[in-house]
């Protein structure tokens, strides 16, 4: 029997195993996982939320970087000739996207007018006699493609795609003599032609202010003067020759400038006719490249959107932080002290919560916008009622935890009220209120865009704009210029979707028991 063998073991056979050694618990090999680490581990597993946060990061980077790269460039300058133009990029253009083009219907008259820009651009010397088909190949030809011809009410209608940038064509400009010399210098350097011959103001000039009527016309129709001095209409065809109406000197050379005023050599004003596309190139050092097009005033829409994201996000984050702070303090006091204080504070919160946000925002705008500006008064309006839900959250957590044993223990040990509130109870509610603070952001972005859209708040200006303002600028004209609406709408929708996904991910991570239960 086994136990028999171990009977009566002498005392000497025993010895202390660890005599003289210090005994202590072994340290954990693994690192402890805290509340936030735990939440992070859970958040990481939620693929949709991680994806959403990556997109949010990309949008924020876009908002920060685009204005940074635009400094020094004149992209933030507005260009009234290129207002409301569609997306255009010289590199992408060769693939047929972002070519600044729109499909439009042309009558014979307007088609010749549009094609004429390219023909005139091809005729650098101003000699005339360029065949239309030659002008078709020109790189400054606005008509990208003539799709088909149809007959409508007895008239031929051409469906064609036109580059809205090149469509601007030629304009008249009054420049100083020194500027003129500079342009000529630049032309030689780059080989890009800016200055084109002036047009004679005679009976054949249809509109003396429009620099695109360079050919002889009669009530807008292209004509040729026959031998007997009569104007004969030329019908549209591939090989039609538009008869030029350029101003010429005695030797028959085209005139490029006209003296219009000014005394000294430097201040002498010249009237010139420039091809706007190249004039823009000369002014800005690059061809017009607006990947998202230009807005209603002629700013680069990509830049304006970056600006708008900045402002909208800044407002949203600011509101979210302030709500967090006010809500935490208010809710903590309510929940911790309870009783009459709670009752009174709840009533105040109830009343504030009862005021419709739109009314608050309107009243703040009417009263304060003149005094402190539109943005601060909008912020006030958001903060005024925004903290209530956070406070309610915190209050609930305080009711749950304030009578627990560990709080009593802390109180017995002499901890002050403030210590118990912030150190012992408040951290319990941190998860929920962080989540709700994040979810405030899309709501603020939406409310801001709604208020701007309705015109209650006006955040637009030369320096800054908001996403809502961009949308409201576009709201009356977007049917003709869809890009004005599409890009801001996409950005707002993306922001809303991503912040909602991100917030939901946070909630699941902080409070796994709520997973799948969507408010």
């Amino acid at each position, binding site marked *: 029997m086994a136990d028999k063998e171990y009977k009566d073991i002498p005392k000497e056979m025993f010895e202390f195993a660890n005599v003289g050694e210090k005994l202590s618990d072994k340290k954990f090999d693994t690192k402890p996982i805290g509340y936030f680490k735990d939440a992070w581990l859970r958040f990481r597993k939620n693929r949709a939320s991680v994806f959403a946060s990556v997109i949010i990061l990309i949008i924020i980077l876009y908002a920060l970087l685009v204005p940074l790269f635009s400094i020094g460039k004149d992209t933030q300058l507005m260009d009234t000739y290129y207002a409301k133009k569609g997306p255009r990029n010289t590199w992408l253009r060769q693939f047929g996207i972002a070519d600044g083009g729109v499909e439009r219907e042309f009558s014979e008259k307007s088609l010749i007018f549009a094609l004429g820009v390219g023909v005139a651009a091809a005729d650098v010397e101003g000699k005339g006699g360029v065949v239309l088909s030659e002008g078709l190949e020109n790189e400054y030809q606005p008509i990208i493609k003539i799709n088909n011809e149809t007959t409508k009410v007895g008239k031929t209608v051409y469906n064609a795609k036109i580059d809205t940038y090149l469509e601007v064509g030629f304009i008249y400009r009054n420049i100083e003599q020194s500027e003129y010399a500079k342009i000529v210098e630049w032309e030689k350097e780059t080989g890009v032609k800016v200055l084109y011959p002036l047009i004679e103001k005679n009976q054949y000039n249809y509109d003396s202010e429009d620099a695109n009527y360079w050919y002889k016309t009669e009530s807008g129709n292209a004509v040729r003067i026959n031998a007997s001095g009569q104007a004969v209409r030329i019908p549209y065809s591939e090989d039609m020759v538009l008869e030029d109406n350029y101003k010429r000197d005695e030797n028959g050379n085209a005139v490029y400038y006209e003296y219009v005023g000014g005394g000294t050599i430097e201040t002498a004003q010249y009237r010139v006719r420039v091809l706007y596309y190249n004039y823009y190139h000369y002014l800005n050092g690059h061809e017009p490249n607006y990947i998202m097009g230009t807005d209603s005033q002629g700013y680069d829409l990509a830049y304006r959107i970056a600006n708008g994201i900045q402002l909208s996000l800044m407002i949203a984050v600011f509101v979210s932080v302030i709500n967090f702070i006010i809500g935490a303090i208010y809710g903590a006091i309510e929940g911790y002290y309870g009783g009459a204080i709670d009752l009174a504070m709840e009533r105040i919160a109830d009343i504030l919560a*009862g005021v419709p946000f*739109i009314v608050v925002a309107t*009243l703040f705008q009417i009263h304060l916008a003149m005094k402190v500006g539109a943005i601060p008064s909008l912020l006030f309006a958001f903060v005024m009622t925004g903290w209530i839900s956070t406070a309610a959250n915190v209050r609930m957590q305080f009711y749950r935890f304030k009578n627990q044993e560990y709080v009593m223990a802390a109180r017995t040990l002499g901890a002050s009220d403030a210590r118990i509130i912030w150190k012992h109870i408040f951290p319990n509610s941190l998860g929920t209120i962080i989540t709700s603070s994040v979810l405030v952001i899309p709501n603020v972005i939406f409310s801001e865009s*709604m208020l701007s859209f309705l015109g209650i708040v006006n955040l637009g200006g030369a320096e800054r704009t908001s996403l809502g303002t961009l949308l409201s600028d576009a709201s009356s004209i977007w049917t003709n210029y869809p890009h004005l609406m599409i890009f801001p709408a996409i950005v707002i929708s993306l922001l*809303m*979707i991503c912040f909602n996904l991100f917030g939901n991910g946070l909630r699941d991570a902080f409070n796994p028991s709520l997973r799948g239960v969507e408010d």
Partner: protein
Amino acid sequence: MAKYIVKRILLMLFTLFVITTICFMLVRILPRELPQDKNLQAVIEARWDALGYNEPLLVQYGIYLKNIITKWDFGTSWYISVMKPAWDVIIDRLLPTVLVNLYSLLFSIPIGIGFGVLAAIKKNKWQDSVISTLVMLFVSIPSYVYAFLVQYFLYFKLDWFPLNVYSLADAGGSWFTPKMFYSMIPAILALSFGVIAGLTRFTRAELTETLTSEYMLLARTKGLTRAQATTRHALKNAMVPIMPMIISSFIGILGGSLIIEQIFSIPGVGQLYMKAITLRDYDVFMMDSIFYTFVGLLAGIVVDISYGFIDPRIRMGER
């Protein structure tokens, strides 16, 4: 129960009173503008004087309250419809708002609940993930984006519907003509996407919870088929929180949607609000603000009370 309801209503009236007071003070201290028309100017100035608009603020407020209580007079519209009582102005605008929103709700409630039930029954299958993803998208996208999409496709691309809601005269003089309904369809659609998505999400969440509860297991062991158990037990219980949400939406339709009314030019309460701001018609603005506040508060109360009626297990007024 009755005591609780009375208590809630009294509290609501108190809240409404406080908000009205604050709004009144803030609105009345604003400078008022007279119209351009000289004759009208004299008339309006005389009316203002007679109505005590030049008295101290508190006296004005006293007159305002007295008029509401004795004559149900919420002030006068000075610019939108000259000299018409503000109450009448808003009542005239109520019908279009309610109609558009009612149509939208009637359209979206069955669809929303249907999708929600489908997603809950097929939980974690492809139907569920498709619906859940779409819901996430549709809940987040702002309503005006839908409005533009609807306008773009149904008007510009397909030309099936008019751009705006017809005026009363165009549609045959009544809000209930088929022609009027036809012109309202784009607005109804634009309103519905968000509501459908919200309802789907809510239904799915509630139903998945009831589907996994123990009485469902009991129902199945009792011999009920899955479909029977779902419709008789799970759906009924899931409806407890869904019904109040629907009821509150029905009250919420009184408030309508400012932005949709603006985009589709529906002559409703929301458009009136915008007009009151731009034209500085402050009495109408006050009326509209009180109206919005009241609707919001009422929705809250009705939801809380309806819980008690729908589910007798929930005792109202107890902590």
